[in-house]
């Protein structure tokens, strides 16, 4: 499965700060085995289930041109068998025990999860301990799975947004690996070999590059002993270093047009934006909420209610290891012009720069972020995903220890509450500039479109 968006962080309103902050991190314990495997546990006994998820700090960010899509392809291959669990056996075990399993890959990470009833969940540990190093890569399996991955890529191309998204990211990032989509380029997939895949696996799938998160109805001491017994003997692995590629500053607006048979036109605008846990990233989360969360948000009020020029419009910002994009999407109503909607979005960004946001509106945005953090993480699996995600992407030494790794979630609410009206003006001024943006239009194949200068 390819991720194209993730639950955005957020917690809750009028609760005391301490209580709100502790909702996700309360009771969390972190253990690091001698071989470098990070283990995060959180007991929750209100439901008889356990979610376990293992995160590898490897995604399309770690790939190179000509071999794109390997991280995601590898994710598929980890279901194709080891000596101990033949092809299909992982799924059969999941079936017999009434569980669920899946995996997902995105720019910065790959993760595999299981959920089981709490009287039978430990098979998940045995499977993960085994397939971390023992996946077999049978050539026949590799070729048939290649077709499956290519079909997954085609589903994306047939969807309403992916073609345009791919072009905008590829244009905004010319050096950094965020240039290509997680699924990879079709030509690269076709030329991939089992040997490439094995080498990539041998580089990244090791305890020192992994975080195991377990949330639910289990006993921590007993579980840690089991984890130790299963994982401790696996060697730490090579100290593989990610590519250190910094996208140079963009020196002027970039504009692209993509043609596809489409009944409606679509607009995507991306502004280069800071990485996870950057001071300005918290401000951008609040801006995202002001612009686009709910029907009282500014983009809804402007584009859907007032101009009535779109069927939908959104502002989107996700946390990533490296600087990424804050982007806007709009689906244009027939009879309206892309240029007009684009200009309306810029008008709203100018407003952010020039008019301080009223305290009530700012407070609404903070509450929405906080409440969503509670309401979107009821399940142990959802909590395990969030803890593992930030342990994986917020690990850089530039991030203060108090907010590094999963502790990011313990400080998030305070950081969001600290965002002031003048921060919003400053950050809008800094990032939402013409030189910093890439603008993409999706138009129908038949249409000749003159791109007016805006």
């Amino acid at each position: 499965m390819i991720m194209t968006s993730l639950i955005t962080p957020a917690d809750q309103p009028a609760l005391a700060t301490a209580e709100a902050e502790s909702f996700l991190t309360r009771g969390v314990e972190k253990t690091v085995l001698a071989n470098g495997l990070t283990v995060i546990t959180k007991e929750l006994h209100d439901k008889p289930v356990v979610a376990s998820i293992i995160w590898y700090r490897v995604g399309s960010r770690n790939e190179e041109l000509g071999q794109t899509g390997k991280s995601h392809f590898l994710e598929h291959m980890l279901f194709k068998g080891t000596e101990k669990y033949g092809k299909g056996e992982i799924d059969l075990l999941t079936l017999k025990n009434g569980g669920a399993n899946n995996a997902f890959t995105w720019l910065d990470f790959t993760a595999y999860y299981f959920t089981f009833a709490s009287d039978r969940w430990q098979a998940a540990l045995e499977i993960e301990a085994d397939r971390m190093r023992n996946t077999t890569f049978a050539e026949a399996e590799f070729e048939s799975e290649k077709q499956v991955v290519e079909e997954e890529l085609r589903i994306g191309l047939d969807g309403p947004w992916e073609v345009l998204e791919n072009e905008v990211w590829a244009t905004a990032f010319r050096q950094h690996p965020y240039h290509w989509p997680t699924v990879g380029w079709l030509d690269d997939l076709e030329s991939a070999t089992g040997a490439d895949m094995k080498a990539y696996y041998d580089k990244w799938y090791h305890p020192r590059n992994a975080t195991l998160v377990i949330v639910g109805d289990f006993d921590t001491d007993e579980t840690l002993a089991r984890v130790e017994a299963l994982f401790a003997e696996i060697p730490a692995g090579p100290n593989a270093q990610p590519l250190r590629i910094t996208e140079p500053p963009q020196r002027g607006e970039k504009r692209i047009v993509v043609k596809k048979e489409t009944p409606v036109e679509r607009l995507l605008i991306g502004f280069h934006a800071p990485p996870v846990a950057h001071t300005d990233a918290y401000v951008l989360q609040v801006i995202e909420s002001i612009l686009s969360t709910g029907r009282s948000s500014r983009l809804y009020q402007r584009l859907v209610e007032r101009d009535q020029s779109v069927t939908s419009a959104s502002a989107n910002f996700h946390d990533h290891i490296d600087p990424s994009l804050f982007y806007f999407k709009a689906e244009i109503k027939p009879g309206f012009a892309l240029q007009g909607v684009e200009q309306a979005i810029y008008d709203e960004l100018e407003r952010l720069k020039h008019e301080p946001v009223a305290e009530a509106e700012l407070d609404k945005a903070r509450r929405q972020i906080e409440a969503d953090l509670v309401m979107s993480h009821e399940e142990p699996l959802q909590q395990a995903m969030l803890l593992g995600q930030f342990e994986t992407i917020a690990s850089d030494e530039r991030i203060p220890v108090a907010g590094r790794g999963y502790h990011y979630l313990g400080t998030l609410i305070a950081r969001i509450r600290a965002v002031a009206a003048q921060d919003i003006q400053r950050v809008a001024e800094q990032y939402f500039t013409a030189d910093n943006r890439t603008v993409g239009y999706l138009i129908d194949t038949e249409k000749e479109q003159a791109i007016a200068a805006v």
Partner: protein
Amino acid sequence: MQQSSTQPATRPRLDVERIELANGLVVLLSENHATPSVAFKAVVAAGSRYETDDKAGLASLVGEMIDEGTTTRSAQQIAETVEAVGGKLGTYGDYQESGVVAMFLSQDLALGLEIAADLLMNATFPEDKVQQQRDRRLAQLKSRLDVPRTQASDVFNDLVFRGTPQHRPSVGYDATVKNLTRDDMVAFYRRFYAPNITLLAIVGDIDKATARAQVEAAFGAWPVASELALPDVPKPVRQREAIEQFVTAHKEQINIFIGHVGIERRNPDYYRLLVLDTILGSSPGFTSRIPRILRDEMGLAYTTYSNITSSAGVDPGRFVAYIGTSPDNLTLALAGLRHEIARIVNEPVTSQEVEMARDYLTGSFVFHFQKNLQIADFLADAETYALGFDYLERYPELIHAVTVEDVSRMAQSYIDPEHLTTVVVGPLAERQ
């Protein structure tokens, strides 16, 4: 895994209280203190199944319009009130039902209920909003067809459910939506939005006694519709011929739906058919036959499945098998799906398959009760289909009783491999 299949599955537990207000509103309450939040769902038992072909899209537009203004609040005031406390509230109208779905922090439940009651009782359908939402819907109808799987599913329903309201998409058609008026909407709303065909399920970090009082305060004054007469809805009949339809669309993949009319949720064979679904085309990973063979072994698709139970409702749903694949695979994919459909009818399944399916269904039951909204959905279903709140105890027994012979009998009774509707949408120009 060492788990023996005879060990009883971990069972979910629910403490449910059911009350009925004097106006007929059924209220279902369940406490879940896992997080400081609450979800609720108000379900009006009326939807597009009660509209006529020439008004297609009406119930759905009404459902979307009830938060566009009430006698005391503007659309913007409604949104501001909900969102200022970080709440989420949506309104809808679909095939079988309409209503409000919401999530709030637990301290804001009274506010949420007050707003929901206002929308259900006092919506005004302002003329300018009617115009605006109608235009937006017309654009959405165009954009919707940009998803080839949706397009194929619509064509399939149109053929399989011909002669019944289910043949239409609930969102309506361009030609019918254009002609819907404010009068149509007000008439539908006045006729059907009534407490005596509505249920309200509230689940989360609540105190039941307090919630009961809040519900009474918000909904007590909703007048009962004593004259309410519900239209008769014609039931679909399973086809007696094989039907094929190919539609050309300029896409990367072809999308295939094969099937025919399915079952109602109240059908007592529902549980036996759940086991059949698990064996044939709906189970975790790629364990059931269709995904295992067509995806994992043949590499034909990323998505392929089948089911008959998941669309079962007040009216019969559909038995359907789906695959999305490259145009080159058309012949293989069609043959593969048809072969598996015929095989489960013509050959007995194995006892091992039945045993694993039973273990899966009973073992995974607990996962249907993880989130407040999921539990609220269950309570609504339990009320709608008279499942009884002892259903959580009975379900494992119902599943455990299913035998190999039952599954074969189900396949023979409910699946007809000789008389299927096949719809293919995609880049087919060369073929035709």
